[in-house]
């Protein structure tokens, strides 16, 4: 019998092994066998990797924390700066809105000339409703000039210095404005009070006062120009045997949030006090 050479056996073995692997791969058994063989290796690799990473972190993380802290501080500074910038811009936006509204008002009423001024303070006494403006006689503001906003009448200039002016608001107790009512076609007076409320006074009982009736300056008395909006009639009251009826007024101007105003500079108020007759002695 002829002896089969070793080389042939080797070839056969290789073919068998390759064939077996192919059969196993085709039948899907190879994956499971390889998986079972590799799992311990993966476990070992994971264990080793975790330890190596821990050692690496031990040496590198403190340096990273320092860097992160520096970055965090820098970012916090940046956030603070941006927040203050946002607040500043919001403030500017509010002021711009107010100025645009005032500008619109000035454009809609071109007959008058105006000086815009900011409200910088209020009278320190709780009895008085006055505000202080940041413009004075150097800017052409003088005593008696009417003060308005785009919403309506604010008051009149009570005193001036070179760079500031004091405005008596229509809400002040001593303030009296001659007005006319749009619907009722009658004239009356608007008076302030210590609480800042504004009331309509000196209305004849025969006049039908209606809620919502619009109140404008009449121009009588020479203190204010006519047709400046003041507010709306809220609640008319006619007491029995009273000579006049009264009504609360809802002013159009928000006096608690008065930020900027317009001073009408081409109106000269008239002091009629010398013309008022005094009782004979």
């Amino acid at each position: 019998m002829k002896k089969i050479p070793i080389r042939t056996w080797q070839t056969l073995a290789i073919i068998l092994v390759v064939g077996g692997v192919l059969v196993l791969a085709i039948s899907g058994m190879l994956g499971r066998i390889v998986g079972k063989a590799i799992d311990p290796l993966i476990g070992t690799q994971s264990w080793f990797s975790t330890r190596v990473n821990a050692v690496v972190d031990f040496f590198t993380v403190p340096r990273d924390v320092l860097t992160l802290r520096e970055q965090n501080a820098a970012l916090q500074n940046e956030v603070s700066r941006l927040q203050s910038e946002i607040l500043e811009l919001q403030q500017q936006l509010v002021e711009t809105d107010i100025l645009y509204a005032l500008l619109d008002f000035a454009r809609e009423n071109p007959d008058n000339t105006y000086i815009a001024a900011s409200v910088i303070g209020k009278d320190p006494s709780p009895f008085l409703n006055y505000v202080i403006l940041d413009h004075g006689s150097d800017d052409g503001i003088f005593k008696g000039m009417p003060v308005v906003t785009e919403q309506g009448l604010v008051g009149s200039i009570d005193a001036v210095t070179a760079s500031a002016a004091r405005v008596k608001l229509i809400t002040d107790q001593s303030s009296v404005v001659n007005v006319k009512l749009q619907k009722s076609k009658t004239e009356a007076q608007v008076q302030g009070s210590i609480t800042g409320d504004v009331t309509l006074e000196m209305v004849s009982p025969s006049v039908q006062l209606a809620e919502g009736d619009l109140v404008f300056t009449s121009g009588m008395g020479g203190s204010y120009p006519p047709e400046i909006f003041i507010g709306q009639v809220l609640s008319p009251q006619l007491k029995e045997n009273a000579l006049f009826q009264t009504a609360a007024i809802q002013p159009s101007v928000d006096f608690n949030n008065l930020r900027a105003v317009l001073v009408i500079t081409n109106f000269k108020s008239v002091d009629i006090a010398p013309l008022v007759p005094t009782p004979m002695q």
Partner: protein
Amino acid sequence: MTVLAVIPVLIILLLLQTTIAKEMTLLDGTVDLVLVWLAAWGLSTRDRSGYILAVVSGALVAYITALPWYIYLSVYIAVIILAKFVFNKLWESPLLAMFAITMVSSILLYTLTYAGLRLNGVSYPFGITLNRVIIPSVFLNLFLAMPVYAIVKDFSGWLNRSEESA
């Protein structure tokens, strides 16, 4: 030197008075920071600086306010006189003295204001004025009396030490 150091503080207080203090109201009453400060200063110091400060702050407020000029000036001087009198003669309990001076001087200020405005032809309804302005304002002044006294006491002590060391 003490007076020169305190005048800026009074100016700042006056600025606060015309801005923030007027926004923080109780009904229609507001606090008078300068009055409370002067009351505390009168109790904390033994020299005559209080009188000068009273005149300066009275003149400053009189310049700003639409009230007759003599009201704030006279009341602020009265606060110092009262503080010296109470501290030296009546008792030496500064906290009680501070409350008493603040209350009396506040009532004096608002009574004089009421009378002064009436003299000028502006009449206020007494009931509403009392309930909505005078009592709340006095209460606010009393509310701030203790913290202001503590601050002024420390401040005057610090100024004295600074002067002595200089």
